[in-house]
């Protein structure tokens, strides 16, 4: 079903299937009628609070989902914050996004409360997501409940779920892929969404909830397969937000599970293209999107219903990527003979890791350079994880020791997975830019 607003979605399913299960979280559950009632009740309280912008320190719980829908219904601007990033960065993000109220772990919310602002005017309907790599220069992408609902429909038009399905939501709701493909996809189809109980339950959530579908990032898919955590009823896995080794997809397919691969960005409210059959890397364009390729192969996206309004308070950054309504993705692609899209690489100096997060290399390498007081270095990806290539004389243990304080400030997935020391200079272009592809090939063969 295509819905205009979150409120419409809740009204529709509460009317059509009031007793149908909407959400499960551990032993708790809410039918669609109960979910609607809980959201309306909380929205009333939020309206009375007079607050205008709610920062959600997302923990993926049922209460978190109710709060999010309620704040939207109450006309508040919502900011999706990742509770796992360092407190100092969270404080800066709260100030940047004008949050005047926080929801989440009480201890953390209390710690962050001095950063709260005076709020914002005209933020109704807006939901701000940070691009997958939350960094010092994090940009908040302004989406709306309307664009997110359209995105959920857009994806479900290619991969529909039925009301008897259970979609397992393991990914963080603060990432747009997790939000749309882990939550809204299921709710917009009237299915039951089982909310993952946190990282410590990754290995047993499938056994506990017995889902029929799940959305994962490549690293999580590897974990589920390695630990044998996949239940018999699971018939569909949607993989997104990063490059996925073909062997992983093959391992899932060998268990008789249909595997689809999705391509999308925070700026397009998630899905733009999804594979529905055959080669999982050959993706069909979703019905609301038009994809073309620039001369250099860059993927250009026209997505009138799902496109971001812009980067929050960053008009120049918005204009740099959104030109005449067309989003310049920074990804490279090609179309095959059947018109299906294949993503072939990145134009931006960015790594997309196997846990779905991104590293913006100039910033990341700059911080490493500052920590080591050494500029002849580069970061490449090996098995979807960042590895430092250090050119010069140094000991591996000493470098790791010097980098320890910096690594402690980063989310675990973005911490270096290894250090490679070479006495050779880094390969560079005539203008001094690092030849990343050449370096990648060189290190991969060692």
């Amino acid at each position, binding site marked *: 079903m295509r819905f205009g607003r979150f409120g419409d979605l809740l009204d529709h399913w509460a009317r059509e299937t009031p007793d149908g299960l909407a959400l499960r979280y551990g032993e708790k559950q809410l039918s669609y009628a109960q979910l609607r009632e809980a959201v309306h009740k909380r929205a009333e309280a939020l309206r009375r609070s007079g607050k205008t912008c709610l920062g959600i320190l997302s923990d993926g719980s049922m209460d978190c989902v109710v709060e999010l829908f309620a704040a939207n219904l109450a006309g508040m601007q919502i900011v999706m914050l990742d*509770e*796992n990033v*360092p407190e100092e960065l969270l404080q800066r993000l709260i100030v940047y996004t004008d949050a005047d109220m926080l929801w989440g*772990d009480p201890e*953390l919310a209390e710690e962050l409360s001095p950063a709260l602002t005076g709020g914002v005017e005209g933020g109704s309907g807006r939901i701000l997501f940070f691009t997958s790599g939350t960094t010092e220069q994090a940009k908040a992408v302004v989406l709306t409940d309307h664009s997110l609902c359209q995105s959920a429909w857009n994806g479900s038009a290619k991969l529909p779920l039925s009301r008897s399905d259970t979609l397992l939501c393991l990914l963080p709701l603060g990432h747009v892929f997790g939000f749309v493909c882990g939550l809204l996809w299921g709710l917009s189809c009237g299915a039951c969404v089982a909310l993952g109980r*946190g*990282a*410590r339950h*990754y*290995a047993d959530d499938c056994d506990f909830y017995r889902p029929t579908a799940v959305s994962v990032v490549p*690293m*999580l898919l*590897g*974990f589920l397969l390695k*630990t044998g955590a996949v239940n018999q009823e699971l018939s569909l896995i949607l993989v997104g937000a990063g490059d996925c080794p073909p062997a992983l997809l093959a391992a899932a397919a060998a268990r008789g599970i249909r595997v689809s691969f999705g391509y999308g960005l925070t700026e397009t409210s998630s899905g733009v293209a999804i594979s529905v059959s055959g080669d999982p890397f050959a993706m069909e364009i979703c019905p609301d999107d038009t994809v073309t390729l620039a001369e250099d192969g860059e993927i250009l996206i026209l997505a009138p219903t799902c496109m971001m309004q812009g980067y929050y308070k960053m008009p120049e950054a918005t204009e740099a990527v959104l030109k005449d309504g067309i989003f310049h993705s920074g990804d490279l692609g090609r179309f095959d003979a059947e018109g299906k899209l294949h993503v072939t690489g990145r134009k931006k100096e960015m790594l997309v890791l*196997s*846990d779905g997060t991104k590293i913006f290399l100039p910033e990341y390498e700059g911080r490493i350079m500052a920590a080591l007081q050494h500029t002849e270095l580069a970061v490449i990806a090996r098995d979807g*994880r960042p590895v430092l290539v250090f050119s010069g004389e140094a000991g591996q243990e000493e470098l*790791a*020791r010097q*980098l*320890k304080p910096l*690594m*402690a400030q980063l*989310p*675990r*997935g973005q*911490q*270096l*997975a*290894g*250090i490679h020391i070479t006495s050779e200079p880094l390969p560079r272009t005539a203008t001094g830019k690092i030849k990343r592809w050449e370096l990648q090939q060189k290190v991969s063969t060692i």
Partner: protein
Amino acid sequence: MTRDEILQKTRQVILDCFPEMADMDLREDTVINTDTGIDSMGFVLIICKLEAMFDVRIPERQWKKLSTLGDVADAILKRLPNA
């Protein structure tokens, strides 16, 4: 239970999960990500096994602060009933 005993059991759990690390010198200042190459999913596996072994619960929000084997041992020690 002493800190050294916890460290020893932590090493054992890592080797149970990742037998390919048998030759690695796992010391208390070994940085789990950078020195061992264990990814975030591997880390989840290790922490869950340690929690079950010591019957403690380290809040997920604290996991990001566990950088070295020593950090992990300290987090467990702090939560042992008789600590």
